[in-house]
């Protein structure tokens, strides 16, 4: 049987970047094939050429053994190639049905289309109401639209570009069930992700790209996450360097009986939370998403202002009633989970984004006028120190890929040398090499005497990074203890809400 898809010498040049450099690999029928690589390795570019959104400068694409030119996405769909995009190409103001109809090339009466959609949803266990407006749907539901849309065409190859970066663990599990079922029916899947444990759980083969070049094709089940990460970054993965036997200084951030009020329907409020972080200490907050992490971050950053001045203190000074700007002046910087639109303004230049959070601490505003030279210099330093792939301080935040924006935001806060830094998901969507760099920068910041709170769902990250750990569940925080004293099982139990005697320990 011929290969479903075979690429030979695919090359794509952008101004200044060779995005793909003679990439060759093959995907067999029914195979789940991973495409791995750091941010900017050229994965999205490669699949866009397979789907006909871009044309390769050189190289050949063979489809079921035959050489083809995929002129546009329509031609791709005609061949039997479906794609689910990294950024969903949905129309918010239109209904699910209208969105799917737009993706169909043949004109199908809407009643017939609806019954076919229901059939696909039934077969693969994808629940959706066809008449809902997309604007009202969750991210997971939106992705389901894309998947249904692709499946309606009975594809022989389904391309998924980082499908899980926005999903909850439960949604990821559901997605994998669908993908395995599809593969069993003979549909090939080309799966792009950063998450190596997902690749190991799901994929039969992995092709690794680095700087546009193919570096290896391997069997992920035979590899360790570490060995694949090292192939991606082309060097040994650096372990976090922590001085042994560090001692902590005096308490910097003291949180005492902090509670918030529920703001939205889906929010979980923080309930009577107390903890202390000392100079030089990194406190990890573990927990399943949606257990009050957002409220905790907002309450600490000053986006949610409480009514007790002493509920949060820095160096003994009560900041509970201060807003974000005043808290920043006092030395507390925070990085929310959502990068674009919350931690950064997409349409602003990186330089202007730096002014937004660093203006007071670094004197970027003098007599109400922005010192754009200072902002530019500082942004340039962030870009250089954190290896942000951007043209320069003048690039807009929205033009950066997710991982690069995350590096910029982390760098912007860390280089301000805050007394207290609170971060949520510091390495979300960032590749292994960059994640290691961010971890090291956090450890170095702590070593210089800052107190750090890391809120994350990634247990491996927390165990490697933190000195002490606490678990949040339904808005309540367990007592913080040295991370070494926790077993994985114990953390799991705490995350599931079994507090037991731990709370008083």
């Amino acid at each position, binding site marked *: 049987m011929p290969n479903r898809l075979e690429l030979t010498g695919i090359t794509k040049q952008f101004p200044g970047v060779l995005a793909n450099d003679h990439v060759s690999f093959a995907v067999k029928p029914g195979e789940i094939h991973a495409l791995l690589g750091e941010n900017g390795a050229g994965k999205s570019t490669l699949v866009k050429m397979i789907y*006909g*959104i*871009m044309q390769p400068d050189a190289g050949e694409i063979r489809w079921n053994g035959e050489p083809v030119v995929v002129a*546009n*996405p*329509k031609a791709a*769909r005609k061949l039997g190639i479906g794609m689910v*995009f990294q950024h*969903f*190409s*949905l*129309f*918010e*103001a*239109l209904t699910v049905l*209208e969105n799917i*109809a*737009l*993706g169909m*090339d043949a*004109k199908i009466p809407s009643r017939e289309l609806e019954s076919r959609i229901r059939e696909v949803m039934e077969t693969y266990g994808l629940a959706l109401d066809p008449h809902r407006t997309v604007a009202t749907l969750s991210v997971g539901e939106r992705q389901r639209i894309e998947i249904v849309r692709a499946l309606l065409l009975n594809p022989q190859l389904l391309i998924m570009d980082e499908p899980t970066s926005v999903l909850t663990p439960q949604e990821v599990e559901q997605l994998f069930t669908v993908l395995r079922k599809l593969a069993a029916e003979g549909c090939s899947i080309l799966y792009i992700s950063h998450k190596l444990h997902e690749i190991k759980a799901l994929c039969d083969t992995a092709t690794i790209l680095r700087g546009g070049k193919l570096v290896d094709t391997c069997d992920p089940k035979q590899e360790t996450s570490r060995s694949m990460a090292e192939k991606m970054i082309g060097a040994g993965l650096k372990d976090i360097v922590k001085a042994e036997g560090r001692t902590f200084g005096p308490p910097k951030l003291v949180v005492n009986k902090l509670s918030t009020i529920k703001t939205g329907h889906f929010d979980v409020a923080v309930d009577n939370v107390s903890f202390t972080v000392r100079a030089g200490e990194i406190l990890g907050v573990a927990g399943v998403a949606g257990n009050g992490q957002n409220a905790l971050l907002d309450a600490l950053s000053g986006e949610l202002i409480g009514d007790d001045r002493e509920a949060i203190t820095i160096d003994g000074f009560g900041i509970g009633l201060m807003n974000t700007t005043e808290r920043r002046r006092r030395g507390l910087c925070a990085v929310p989970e959502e990068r674009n639109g919350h931690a950064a303004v997409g349409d602003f230049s990186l330089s202007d984004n730096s002014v937004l959070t660093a203006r007071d601490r670094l004197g970027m505003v003098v007599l109400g006028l922005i010192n754009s030279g200072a902002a530019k210099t500082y942004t340039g330093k962030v870009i250089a120190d954190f290896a942000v792939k951007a043209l320069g301080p003048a690039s807009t935040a929205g033009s950066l890929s997710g991982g690069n924006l995350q590096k910029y935001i982390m760098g912007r806060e860390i280089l301000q040398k805050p007394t207290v830094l609170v971060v949520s998901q510091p390495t979300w969507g960032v590749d292994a090499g960059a994640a290691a760099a961010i971890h090291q920068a956090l450890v170095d910041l702590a070593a210089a005497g800052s107190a750090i709170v890391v809120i994350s769902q990634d247990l491996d990250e927390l165990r490697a990074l933190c000195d002490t750990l606490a678990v949040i569940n339904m808005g309540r925080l367990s007592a913080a203890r040295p991370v070494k004293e926790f077993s994985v099982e114990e953390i799991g139990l705490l995350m599931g809400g079994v507090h037991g005697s731990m709370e008083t320990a």
Partner: protein
Amino acid sequence: MDLTIAILVTVVGASTPILIAALGELVVERSGVLNLGVEGMMLLGAIAGFVVQFHTGNHYLALLCGAAAGMAASLIFGFLTLSLSANQTATGLALTIFGTGFSALAGASYSARPVALMSPIFPDLATHPVLRVLFGYSFPAYFALFMVFAIWFFLKKTRAGLILRAVGENDLSAHSIGYSVIQVRYFAVMFGGAMAGVAGACFPLTLTPQWAEGMTAGRGWIAVALVVFASWRPFRLLGGAYLFGLVMTMELYAKAGGGPLSAIPSELWAALPYIATIAVLVLISLRRDASTNAPACLGKPFMPSN
């Protein structure tokens, strides 16, 4: 009674050009393009329609040529904003200035030369004292009503309409699915230009049977505003256009010294459509769903990443 009938007939006549122009602009904006050149395209349509009517005496040919003139002007706009990604607001304003100037130049030798108005399409019923409310109009009034329904049907029920809405909602996504954003927008802009041209031609052909400089008198701007008030929905546009027509007719009657209406100075009546414009704008912005109904890509040039 007679006065009421007379007023209603005048209202429909005065509303028709606004409605036609606004319907065109509605389609343009639904595709994500903001063309502020409606007033200019109307004036070009008006002069073209007048000149053709003056020389041939054929009203339908005159309307058609008005449409062609508006469409030609919209093609310039389309080329600048769609092919060259020029700023839509600035280009639209320039188009209005161009249309005003060019029509004045072309019409300089035609001023104060009367032509015949279009006759009603049901001549027998048009003289009936009551039924003329329904049957007393010439072709454009019925054309406008038909287009309200046709555009509603097109946008809501046809695949082409769905694609047009999709392009206005999220141009990058439409592009990535494989629709030609620029092509769809060209069609929309040309349709809008043709409608504005017809609307302009209505002035010398159905309202005042001669050419006068700037004879559309800002109605193109009211059409643009109406699209927003109607939150981009054709049937609301119909109601809005007749409402504005009513207010403008009141002004005419007040000027003519028609009974109780003249208690309010005619200058105030003249200002009323614009005051109403502001009032409606405020009301609309207080209501959430109307403002969120705006096409998400309205006014933004399409810049695909490759």
